[in-house]
Every structure is written in C-alpha cells, then in structure tokens.
C-alpha cells in the first residue's frame, strides 16, 4: 500500500517534469496516469491495487453522510413530538474489530449518527456500550450497525 502510493506520487512528479508545466493541475493529471499505470502493472508490484482501499474509504464517507442526514430526521421527530413516549436504553454491541484505531473509528461513527451514542467500551474491548434513544428491538439495532458501519470499516482496514 505505502510502496504503491510512493510510486504513484513519483509518477506524478515525473509527469510534471516531462510536460515542463509545474502546476498543481499537471501534477494531478500525472497522478491519474499513475493510477492507471499501477493498475496495469499490478502483477509486478507487491500488495493489492491500493486504489481499491481509497474507493472503500470514499464509500464509507458517503455511507456516513447518508446515515447522518437520514437519522437526523429521526431525532428531530422525537424533539417535536408533544408526548415523549420513547424508550431509551443502554445495549452492548459485540464487535469483531481488533485494533484500537478501528474501535475508535466505529465509536465515533456511532456517536455521530443520531439515535445512538457510544457510552463506554468494555475492558476486554469486545463490546461497545451504546445508549439508544428509542429501542423497539435490540437485535435489530445491533444488526443494522454491524451490517452498515462495521462492514464498511473492515473493508477499509483489511
């Protein structure tokens, strides 16, 4: 991954020097040419094609924006309801993520999407405790978080 990125940056610089046009635009076009070259020559360079990772990161960002907007209306609904008959609760979400970095990312994403708030992480780092503002079905809440965010994070980091 790091090697491929370095090669790609280097191709961008070479492209800039060959075209004798030292601007940001020519560097970007060289970088794009480099992505194509690395894709074609991927067999000779160690590791997987790194742009797949970048694509996974972009997908995670868009997934996050979608969830942020959709779920915001959920909280708005509770704020403007005259009767506050929601049922909050703290649930334990079992996680398959291993490193601190992944858990950190997941906890932050959970807090940023409305309806859920990460309260604590268990000692052995196997559970994230989530405060949900409305809990009609515990299993369904856990399932939806595991299906969307955890899957996308695993795609980025592994």
């Amino acid at each position, binding site marked *: 991954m790091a090697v491929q990125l370095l090669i790609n940056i280097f191709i961008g610089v070479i492209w800039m020097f060959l075209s004798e046009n030292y601007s940001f635009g020519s560097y970007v076009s060289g970088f794009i040419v480099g992505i194509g070259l690395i894709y074609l020559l991927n067999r000779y360079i160690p590791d997987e094609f790194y742009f797949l990772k970048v694509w996974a990161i972009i997908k995670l960002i868009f997934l996050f924006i979608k969830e*942020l*907007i959709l779920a*915001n209306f959920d*909280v*708005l609904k*509770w*704020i*403007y309801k005259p009767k*506050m008959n*929601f*049922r*909050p*609760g*703290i*649930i*334990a979400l079992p996680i398959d993520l291993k490193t601190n970095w992944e858990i950190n990312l997941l*906890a*932050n*994403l959970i*807090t*940023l999407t*409305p*309806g859920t*708030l*990460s*309260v*604590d992480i*268990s*000692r052995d780092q196997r559970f994230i*405790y989530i*405060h949900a*503002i409305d*809990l009609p079905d*515990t299993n369904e809440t856990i399932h939806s978080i595991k299906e969307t965010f955890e899957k996308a994070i695993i795609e980025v980091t592994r």
Partner: protein
Amino acid sequence: MCSLTEIVISIFLILGTFVVFSGTLGVLRFPDVYSRLHAATKSATLGVSGILIGSFLFFLFVQDLVSGKLLLGIVFVLLTAPVGGHMISRAAYRSGVPLSEKTIQDELNSERDYY
C-alpha cells in the same frame, strides 16, 4: 434580485439554523443527560456543517473565493463533536448520574464493579 445560487445558499443556511434550533430545544425537553447529549452532538454536527456549507457557497459564487478554512471547519467539527459526546456520557455514567425512569434496559450495569 433573486438568483438560483442565492436560493440554494439560503436553503443551506435555513436548514442549518433549523437543526441547531431543534438541537437546543431537544436539550431542554429530553429527560436525562444521555438523551440530551443525543440532541446536543447532532445539532453541532449537521447544523454547523449546513451553515458552513452555505457560507462556503456564498464565498465561492458571490465573491469568487475558494475558502478552504470553512471546509476544514466542517472536518474539525466532525472530528471533535463525537469525542466530546462520548467523554461527557462516559464521565456521567461513571460518576453515577441516573438514567431516566423511561429507560427499559441497562447492559452497562454489569461493568459497574470495575469503576
């Protein structure tokens, strides 16, 4: 004078302000710390990013200025708001702030022995 860009900018600004206003209302109306934090952290993210996007578009189209600072502002709000929410709720739980009586389930209770 009422061009399309002005309408789009106004929509972003009004939506952002509306979300921030609703967040404040939620802080006042919700029953306990944890559900209030729901309202506080969310309005800080979506509302402020709406307002910042609106002002970014204003500088871009009206003054022909690409303002990277405004975009960086969105990134930093998105980075800091969840950390703040997480730390406040964790500190509240560890110092024993009670959950509201509407709460139906508390699985974190089993970890209380460690504190």
